[in-house]
């Protein structure tokens, strides 16, 4: 079965290592991943603050394009993989509002028909974590592990993968990433910050607040003895990793914590060359221990 891939803006720039490692891992598992042609921005959280219906319209165009380009899976739905949590939650939110709110549906449908597009609700949004665990399965992943990771990993899910909609994991205490990290030969740590907000774009707008939210997460991971943090979202990764110098100077701290995408860690355990996983692009380098687990 073929998956359509919706990168979103981040995976083409700051989140580039996420895209590289995602593609490498899917290809190692022989799962076809095809990029959605001429996709547009999902609107993220910023668009919603200016105009709600237009932000739904943005996602509706992507859904319409996906319906046209993809082929339905067994359940009759085109599978669209959205790795960025903001895209993921934003598109699901659009689907919910289109289904539940007649006024929004009418306006979006009018816009779509003006633009010669149609969307009939036959697209399912999937997070790559969901696909790895529930479609590909632990058995195939474990078979592909050539070099167990053997690290202590703080699994950070962030907000929007489980909120407001938890499509594949427990909303209050998600465990899917921990299970995946365990399957690739690493030790998931028990810690309370799994779904605690990183502040998202606040690091760029209300800096003091954004830095503090990131600091709380980094400090806790450090305190628990994590070798690195595993993330599922490009914005979380960006905040947690790239602002560590600012965090340290603001809070008189000395955090130096690698923050890697979970797909990079899976790739490392598959013994995929580091370069193909974008490991060299991380600000805080993570070197896999050579002994393994």
């Amino acid at each position, binding site marked *: 079965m073929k998956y359509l891939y919706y990168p979103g*803006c981040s995976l083409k720039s700051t989140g580039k290592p996420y895209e590289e490692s995602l593609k490498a891992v899917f290809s190692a598992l022989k799962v076809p991943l095809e990029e959605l042609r001429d996709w547009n921005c999902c*609107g993220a959280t910023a*668009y919603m603050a*200016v105009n*709600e219906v*237009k932000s739904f319209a943005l996602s509706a165009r992507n859904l319409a394009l996906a319906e046209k380009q993809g082929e339905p899976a067994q359940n009759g739905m085109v599978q669209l993989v959205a790795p960025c949590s903001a895209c993921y939650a934003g598109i699901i939110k659009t689907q919910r509002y289109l289904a539940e709110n007649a006024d929004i549906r009418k306006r979006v449908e*009018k816009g779509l028909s003006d633009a010669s597009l149609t969307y009939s609700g036959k697209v399912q949004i999937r997070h790559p974590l969901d696909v790895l665990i529930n479609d590909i399965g632990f058995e195939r992943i474990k078979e592909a592990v050539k070099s167990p990771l053997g690290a202590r990993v703080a699994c950070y899910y962030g907000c929007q993968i489980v909120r407001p909609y938890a499509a594949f994991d427990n909303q209050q205490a998600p465990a899917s990433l921990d299970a995946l990290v365990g399957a690739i030969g690493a030790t998931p740590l028990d810690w309370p910050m799994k779904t605690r907000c990183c502040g*998202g774009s606040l690091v760029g707008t209300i800096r003091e607040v954004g830095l503090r939210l990131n600091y709380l997460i980094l400090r806790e991971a450090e305190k628990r003895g994590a070798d690195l943090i595993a993330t599922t979202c490009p914005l979380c990764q960006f905040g947690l990793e790239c602002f560590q110098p600012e965090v340290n100077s603001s809070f008189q701290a000395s955090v130096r914590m690698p923050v890697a995408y979970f797909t990079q860690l899976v790739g490392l355990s598959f013994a995929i060359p580091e370069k193909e996983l974008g490991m060299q692009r991380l600000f805080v380098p993570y070197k896999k221990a050579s002994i393994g687990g």
Partner: protein
Amino acid sequence: MSSPTARPYGPADKAGTRPALVYEVQKVMKFESELNPHFGEEVAQKAHGERLFACIQCGTCSGTCPVSHYMDYAPRRIIQMVREGFEQEVLTSSTIWLCASCYQCTVDCPKQIKLTDIMYALKQIAIARHLYPKNFGVPIMAEEFFKQVAKNGRNNEGKLMINIARRTHLLNLFKYSRLGMKLFATGRMALFEEGIENKEQLRTLLRGVEKTS
């Protein structure tokens, strides 16, 4: 008005004087005629969140919010102020801009009130009326983001940062230059603006959803 030193409240300044409680109360004291009795309904409608009026003021939202201690009014208070019609105070509060849409309050609310959507509705109203400080980053980011996507269909993170700095404080450009260079050096910054091919289709779509009335 009683003397400012009558009741100790809040942190003391260097001289040891504490702000009096009476000031805090007066900040939100208003006559009914100064309130907007329709504000609650307006916001509820805009947020498709008519459940605003089901709020039992339990405070779960404020307790669970990761940024409530930075807000001038925590979410529980905002909800009550919206219902009571404190339009000006709500729309000029820091609260709505601090909300990072983590949806913790929305999933924890025992009355299933979609607080995050209410915050979005308030942001939309405040932006439409230009009710925010001139150099304030959050609404400026939202506006710049909006403009860029409406024009090109995609958001260029590098260009977005530059535009925000331009409209907030040019000094921010220097603040972020270390970060920008590092992103560039690691190949994590797209230099050229990459738009979509079918921009006309997107524009037609965005025009099409605008209300026709």
